[in-house]
């Protein structure tokens, strides 16, 4: 890709422009501001170990937020994504006992993609509102997960299933393969959204579905593919979750839906569809992670942390709005 980039100097500048054209200035400013403040308050904050921690803590919600971004770009919303990932962890752990790690991975991807297909089918074929569809499947999947798991949690063995929790070092910076996986998911989806026809169609479908249809875009198919992709992403998140905690718990990640939506919206993607992108979501995810970590390092108790987080989320978006209005 790098030789291509040299040959196509004009287009790679185009890519950078493309990145910068997303309304990222605000979230970025908020993130930088938070980092500066916390590094003044606590010496440990900027330690490589601590920065790596923040990344690791962001992995699962960060990956889910990529799927959420896709759905929100199509003017939808996915309330079930966290529940799908949790079911994924249970399936993975149970299948690992029965058939070994590869079977377990395959089963997880299969189940998550199938559930993506159910959501996508209801949204595209029956044309039901995504909010209701995913609220319904969320409720049903969560209950099904608990039934499947009984009242138990399941340990997974060290090995391929916990691979994404394995850590490695680059210089002084120690991190896990889960972080790498997250960044790869972001890179991949960023490329698909901004550099392929499929991605342009996602924006068109989210921005004006009638126009998209009249332009000959297979809007149903495009929408459906987005839900399938989100299923795949949920499976990756499930895998990463077992890397973080090698123990599948039917009660885990109950707030993952809201947290992933928060990351998307802080990142500047419009809930009305058609505007935004994953780079903003990554920044949004990091803002949330930095806040939690930084406030703890500053010695703030969690109730006060919640008050502070609530206010800071609003401030982050206010900074964004302000920056955008200035730049107009």
């Amino acid at each position, binding site marked *: 890709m790098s030789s291509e980039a040299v040959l196509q100097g004009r287009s790679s500048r185009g890519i950078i*422009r493309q990145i910068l054209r997303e309304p990222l200035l605000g979230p970025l400013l908020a993130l930088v501001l938070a980092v500066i403040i916390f590094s003044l308050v606590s010496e440990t904050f900027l330690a490589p170990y601590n920065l790596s921690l923040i990344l690791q803590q962001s992995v699962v919600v960060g990956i889910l937020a990529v799927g959420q971004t896709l759905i929100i770009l199509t003017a939808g919303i996915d309330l079930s994504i966290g529940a799908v990932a949790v079911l994924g962890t249970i399936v993975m752990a149970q299948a690992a006992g029965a058939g070994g790690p590869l079977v377990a991975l395959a089963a997880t991807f299969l189940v998550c993609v199938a559930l993506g297909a159910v959501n996508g089918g209801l949204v595209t074929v029956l044309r039901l509102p995504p909010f209701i569809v995913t609220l319904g499947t969320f409720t049903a999947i969560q209950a099904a997960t608990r039934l499947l798991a009984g009242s138990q949690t399941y340990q997974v063995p060290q090995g391929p299933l916990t691979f994404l929790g394995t850590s490695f070092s680059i210089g002084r910076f120690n991190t896990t393969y889960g972080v790498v996986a997250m960044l790869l998911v972001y890179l991949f989806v960023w*490329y698909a959204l901004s550099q392929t026809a499929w991605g342009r169609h996602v*924006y068109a479908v989210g921005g*004006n579905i009638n126009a998209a249809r*009249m*332009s*000959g875009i297979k809007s149903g198919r495009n929408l459906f593919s987005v839900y399938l992709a989100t299923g795949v992403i949920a499976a990756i998140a499930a895998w990463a979750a077992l890397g973080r905690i090698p123990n599948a718990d039917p009660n885990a990640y109950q707030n993952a839906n809201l947290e992933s939506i928060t990351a998307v919206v802080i990142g500047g993607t419009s809930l009305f569809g058609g505007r935004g992108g994953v780079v903003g979501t990554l920044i949004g995810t990091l803002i949330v992670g930095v806040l939690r970590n930084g406030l703890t390092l500053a010695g703030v108790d969690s109730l006060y942390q919640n008050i502070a987080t609530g206010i800071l989320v609003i401030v982050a978006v206010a900074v964004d709005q302000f920056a955008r209005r200035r730049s107009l």
Partner: protein
Amino acid sequence: MTRAEEVPPVLQARGLVKKYGNVTAINSADFDLRAGEVLAVVGDNGAGKSSLIKALAGALVPDAGEILMGGTKVHFRNTRDARAMGIETVYQDLAVVPALDIATNVFLGREVRRRGLMGTLFRRLDMPRMRTESSGHLSDLKIGIKSVSQSVETLSGGQRQGVAVVRAGAFGKGVIIMDEPTAALGVRESGQVIDLIHSIRERGIPVVLISHDIPHVFEVSDRIHVHRLGMRAAVVSPKIRSMSEVVALMTGAEQPTDGERAGGG
């Protein structure tokens, strides 16, 4: 009328019906477009012109009636089916995606990928090429736009219309339908669209032009389809009828001849 009998019409409709609740938008309408001609469709507001051409473009599935191309029955479930048969349309409500840039809008649904592995394997779009081509097409129409990377929502009403016209004009191979393409355009830009229509006809591609601008209609069309109360009232020739007669036909103040009523034009 002899010529019409020899070659089957390129695009034809018989007895199309479309109802919205208790509003009948298309009321058993007929339609004939001959090879290489510019057919104007005129009629009052709400006569059902847009509904008719939406049915012909696959944007609307009629409740009854049939559509034929070159004499064979076709069935359009969506605009893609119609496009596959070479029908390109400029819709009255433009059908652009405001948040996307101009080049992307022009190539929407027919994006160009890079050459080589980058395009086939990585499916990467050739944005530079799409930008260059769209800006070429736009300047052909003399629509002055600074940058095709600008989003469509920042354009003036006329500039938007220009984008929609460019899109259809550049890609139509079989039939090009334009629903009031000059409504928001300035004098100069309108003139360019008329020129574009002439040049399309010279390429041998037939054009359907819906317009309220009767002088334009007379300047460019070979035949005029007069639409009234959801159906074809007459097809007349601009060489035989005057502008005021056509207007009278539209409002029902004047009655068409039997031949005109039958669509003979």
